[in-house]
């Protein structure tokens, strides 16, 4: 009995790791594990079903991510894996790992701040420049190159940069 349980938990671990390692096609330094998009891995015999949660309703990366997960699981030896989308609880940037935030900064994207700042209709946000660390920055546009980013500029080093919006 113990060995069966061990085998199952090892298999599940392997499936989880394979799925969690899939990278976001728009921000290739982040894995879906870092993003908090991977919600659950369910094992039924050798069959595996993965639950993911969408980031933004219309984010086109989600279809790509689901496909990549299937490929990664096939490669890890799981046949015909299924990817299910769960809407609830809704994804929030609070689920992004510390490691993910560090990687984002190193990549040149300012990581998201606490989600309560979102509600302030005209609230002042202080976003730190990922290049030089200055807080002397300004918002250029609320909407950036992907659904999850806003466009900012650093007034100290003059570099424009992406900010991963809190959500």
């Amino acid at each position, binding site marked *: 009995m113990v060995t069966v349980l061990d085998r199952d938990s090892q298999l599940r671990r392997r499936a989880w790791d394979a799925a969690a390692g899939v990278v976001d096609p728009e921000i290739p330094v982040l894995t879906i594990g870092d993003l908090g998009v991977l919600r659950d891995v369910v094992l039924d015999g050798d069959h595996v079903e993965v639950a993911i949660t969408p980031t933004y*309703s*219309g984010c086109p990366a989600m279809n790509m991510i689901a496909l990549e997960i299937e490929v990664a699981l096939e490669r890890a030896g799981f046949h015909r894996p299924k990817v299910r989308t769960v809407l609830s609880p809704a994804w929030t940037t609070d689920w992004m790992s510390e490691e993910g935030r560090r990687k984002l900064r190193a990549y040149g994207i300012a990581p998201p701040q606490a989600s309560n700042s979102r509600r302030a209709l005209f609230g002042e946000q202080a976003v730190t420049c990922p290049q030089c660390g200055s807080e002397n920055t300004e918002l250029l546009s*609320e909407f950036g190159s992907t659904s999850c980013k806003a466009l900012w500029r650093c007034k100290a080093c003059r570099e424009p940069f992406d900010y991963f919006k809190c959500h």
Partner: protein
Amino acid sequence: MPVANIQVSETLLVLYALRRADDALILGHRLSEWCGHAPMLEEDMALSNIALDLIGQARELYTYAAKAEGKDNDEDKLAYLRDVRQYRNLLLVEQPNGDFAQTLVRQFFYSAFADLYWRAMMTSRDTTLAAIAAKSEKESAYHLRHASEWIIRLGDGTDESHARAQAAIDHLWAFTGEMFAVDEGERALIHAGIAIDPATLRGRWLTTLSDVVGEAALVLPQNDWMQQGGRAGRHSEHLGHLLSELQSMQRTFPGQTW
């Protein structure tokens, strides 16, 4: 070969989801018409981003409507194979883009409502609608902030931008009443705890509008006569033209996929 319209068995829940899905799709499509035409690059990206959010919300709602109906329909058929009279969106969202001020005033009126509406719908007893609401309210908060900033910039800008923003407010005002109206079927869903009563949101909606419009040195119209009909499938002439573009691919090449 013309492609026949699908038939939809509109139970109360199917109709409720369809109406919200149609709002999101039609407004998202309108905004996407700005792609490549906005007055500046940042705004081009912003309007396209908002369009993407709205079309994403529409997809979730259509998928749910199809599931609730339990027939052969899916999100694509609901979007591409219904004709004008089968669409149930608000008249507000189908109004043409007009100038930039008209697009932003339309967005402001809708987003100020959607933000309150989705937040309230998070308490729906219908777990799918509550889940869609939890996602949508986060997005609508950004949409509202974006539109509000533009209303202030336009109203408090030049004489020209002020005049255009005021003209847009005066023109679109009569389409706002429909957001707060409910019919008997929706009344039943409200009693069942599945829907919320939008009339309860009107006070806060007006407060948001007054705050922003006041700061923009603009004024809200005093007249309270409201045009309705979209929820029952009676649309302005603009929706048919919009659908002819939105649906042309599926009508020409039925079942075509990417």
